[in-house]
Structure formats: structure tokens, C-alpha cells
């Protein structure tokens, strides 16, 4: 039963991830991303980390991806056909995917062949429980936690500055017709 569930959701995650990068229509890519994130959340729950899984759905699928969709709908992007791809051709895309995959594989390989990681044991349910997680975040990892919070604040302020309407000199003039014969 557990293996079957794992296989179904692992296949869903991989398949929908492929659709995310290969579909022509950005709306379909975004919807596939929802499926990917949800399937990965299920895998988290199966690994005994329900909190991480639930947060993944709450934050990523429930908030961030819906913002993606929001922007895509506002921009009204048209589906792009294969031949007007910004890259020269499919060969280059394939090469990029292969090189990226190899780099990732090497990273994972070296991380796990490192002796520090070999000595580690699997996490117990106690170690991923909400209480432990919260205590660690607010004691041992308080500084990194606060720095991440600050980083998000900076991003919010940055986004507000970028999105702010700059009062343009000529747009105000357009409404005030200068009186006749009063040229500066």
C-alpha cells in the first residue's frame, strides 16, 4: 500500500514536472506545477514530516503559484509555438537539461559521499515534531531565521518600490490646459 502510494505520487511529481518545463501554454505549466508541489507534499507526509508537507501546500500551492497564475493572466501571455523559442533550437535546450542534471547529480553524489553525512542517522519522529522544530528555530537557529525574515522584508519593500507609480510630469500637465498666450 505504502509503496503503491509512493510510486503513484512520485510518478505524478516527475510527470507533471516534465509538463511544467515542456508545455507551450504558461497556464498549463503553472497548473502542472501545482500538481508537482502537491505530490512532493504527499511524499513529505509519507516520510514522516507532515508539517513540512502541509506548509508546502499552504505556502507554495496555496499562495505563491496562485500569484504566478495571477500575473500570467494579467499579462495575457499567448501560447508560444516551438519555433519561436528564445533559444536557437531543441538541441540547445536538451544540452542545458543534460548539463543541469549532471551538475545536480554530482552535487548530490558528493554530498552523500562526504564522511560527515555518512555518520548521520535517519531523523526520528521526535526530531521533526512541531515542538522541536519551533524550539530549534527560535533558539539555535534564531539568527539565520531572523536574517531570512529580513531578506523577505527587503524583497517586499523592493517590490513595492518597483511597482510604485512614479508621478509623471507630463501626465499632470495633460489635464491642465495652460491658458492662452501664457507661454513660459
Amino acid at each position, binding site marked *: 500500500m*505504502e509503496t503503491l502510494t509512493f510510486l503513484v505520487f512520485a510518478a505524478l511529481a516527475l510527470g507533471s514536472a516534465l509538463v511544467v518545463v515542456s508545455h507551450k501554454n504558461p*497556464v*498549463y505549466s503553472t*497548473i502542472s506545477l*501545482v500538481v508537482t508541489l502537491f505530490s512532493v507534499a504527499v511524499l513529505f507526509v509519507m516520510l514522516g514530516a*507532515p*508539517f513540512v508537507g*502541509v*506548509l508546502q*501546500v*499552504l505556502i507554495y*500551492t*496555496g*499562495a505563491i503559484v*496562485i*500569484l504566478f*497564475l*495571477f500575473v500570467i*493572466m*494579467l499579462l495575457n501571455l499567448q501560447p508560444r509555438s516551438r519555433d519561436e523559442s528564445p533559444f536557437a533550437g531543441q538541441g540547445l535546450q536538451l544540452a542545458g537539461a543534460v548539463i543541469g542534471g549532471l551538475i545536480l547529480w554530482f552535487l548530490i553524489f558528493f554530498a552523500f559521499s562526504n564522511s560527515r553525512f555518512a555518520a548521520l542517522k535517519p531523523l526520528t519522529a521526535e526530531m521533526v*515534531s*512541531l515542538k522541536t522544530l519551533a524550539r530549534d528555530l527560535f533558539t539555535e537557529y534564531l539568527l539565520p531565521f531572523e536574517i531570512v525574515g529580513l531578506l523577505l522584508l527587503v524583497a517586499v519593500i523592493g517590490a513595492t518600490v518597483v511597482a510604485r507609480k512614479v508621478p509623471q510630469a507630463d501626465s499632470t500637465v495633460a489635464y491642465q490646459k495652460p491658458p492662452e498666450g501664457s507661454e513660459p
Partner: protein
Amino acid sequence: MADLASPNLLDVAVKLAVMLGFVLTVVPVMVWVERRGSALIQDRPGPNRLGPFGLIQPLADALKFIFKEDVTPSAADKPLYLLAPILALLPAFTTIVVIPFGPTLEAFGRSIPLVIAPAETGVLMFLSLASLGVYSLVLAGYGSNNKFSLLGAIRASAQMISYELALTLSVLAVVIPVSSFYLPDVVAYQQKHVWNVIPQIIGFVVFLIASFAETNRLPFDLPEAESELVAGFHTEYSAMRFASFFMGEYASMTALSCLGVTLYFGGWSLPFVHLTGWIGAIVGLLVLVAKVGIAMAVFVWVRWTFPRFRYDQLMRLGWKVLLPLAILNLLAVAAMTLAGWL
């Protein structure tokens, strides 16, 4: 937390049948309550021809929806257009799995927690599954390929993201004194102390307003605002697909009412009464149904009493009033919990 890995499948099936039966029964009853309630408030008879007090009317409505022609616009994005009404039902029917509907039942030589999914992260699970509801509206609006629908979808996504923050923060304020995300613990806490609505009245008001916005009910029904957007995100839908959105709205109302009642009004429990065993289970379920019924009546009452917000008023209320209020409430509750007052 009970063991999630090896639940008794028969128990789960029975509990699922009880809760799904509850939600599915509530939908037609609510359609009747809504129509008769609106008639009462507007001083007109309302549907009163079919059965006593027009009680059979929802059945006739359902038959009508089934036999109507199902139209798909030729310019629609077909897969998304067909997917959206299905997604409308999903969040409401998945979130009720974390709602407790009775005390732990000692029967058949084992103890059965009367909640479908005894998950440690219950409250968060509810919020995360409920947040997926916006996809149905957005996909309906985009898939219909209609300007009114798209405008409704954009409004829906902006509105639901804005009010979700206030909703989540007010719910978290309840979780702090209980120090558990498991909803039966929240009920047990209220049995020991008082109903949360008394110490957390500010949080409750924020929760109430935000839940009207999350279910897209008046005064927050801008995604479908019929005076400006025809019918908003579901303009192009007809027959059972339209009925599916309709059912989704009532089912979401039921699910949110269940959460609100459990968080602020003691859930299935009654004050000063402690029943156990089968009687406790049955009384618990009936109490929950009664409380949810009152909450749903408030939904109807509010819908036919208040006019619709303007869009800028909606955003101002969400971001400049409810969100700061929810944050202040969270801080106050945290401080009071630390001081040992709660």
C-alpha cells in the same frame, strides 16, 4: 496523535460516510434556507409550491440542472473549462476530514477518535486544503475565455489571497493557548476553560469577516458581482457544471462553519455536560450539526442584509483593517498566554 500509518479502514469508511452524508445533506437544505430566508428578509413568499413550505424545491432545482443543456463555448480552453467545476467541490470535501464530531469512542475493543483524519497538523491541513479552492475560480475564469469571467477570476484570486492572511492569523491566535494544531485538543481545551469566542472575540470577528470573503459571499461577492460582471467567473457555465460551483459554495460554507464552530464555540461539546460512549458520540454529532446550522443561518442573514463592497473598499478592509487587527490579536494572545491569563 493517533497512528496514521495503520488506521482501521472500516472505521475510516464509516466516519467518511457520516461526514460526507452531513455535507451532502446540508447543501440542498441550505439552498432551501437561502431562498426562503431571502424571501423572509425581502418580505415575499419565496418558493412555497412544492411540498410543505416548498421543501421539495431543491430536488426540483437539481432535476432541472441535470436535464438542462450543457454548453461549452467554442472558444473555451476545454480541459481547464471542464476541470474547474470539479475542483470547486474538492476543497470543501477534503477539509472536513480534520473536523472532530464527537469524543473518542471506546467501542469494539479499541478507541476510535471521532475525526476522519487524526492528523497532528489538523488546523494547518484545513487551511492549506481550503487555500486550493481559489484554483477552481481562476481556472473557470481563464478557461471560459470571456472577459467577464477573467475579470471575476482575477478579482477572486486577489481577494482570496488577501483575506487568507487575516483568516490564518486569527486561527493561529486560537492555536497558541491550546499549543496544538490537533482540533480535538482545541475542543478539549474549551471543555476545560471557556469557549474561545469569549477571550478571543477580536480574533473571532476577524475570522467571521474573512470567512465571508473566502467563500465569496455577499458583501464580498465581487468575483461574481452580477451588476457589473454578468455572473463573473461562472458566466459561461450551465446545467450541472454551474450546479457544481453552486454546491461548492455551500459545501465550503459548511466546512468553514465547521472550523469556526470548532475553534470558537466548543465544536461538538456542550458546556457543563460530559457524555461518553455511543450516547456521547451521537449527541456530539447532533450538537455539531446544530451549531453549524446556526452559523450557516448567519451566512444567509448577512448575505441578504449588506450591500456589496466596492473593490477598493474590499482591499482597504482586508489589508489596512483586518490584517493589522489580526496581527495585534495574535500578539495580545501570545502575551496573555505567556502571562498565564489564558
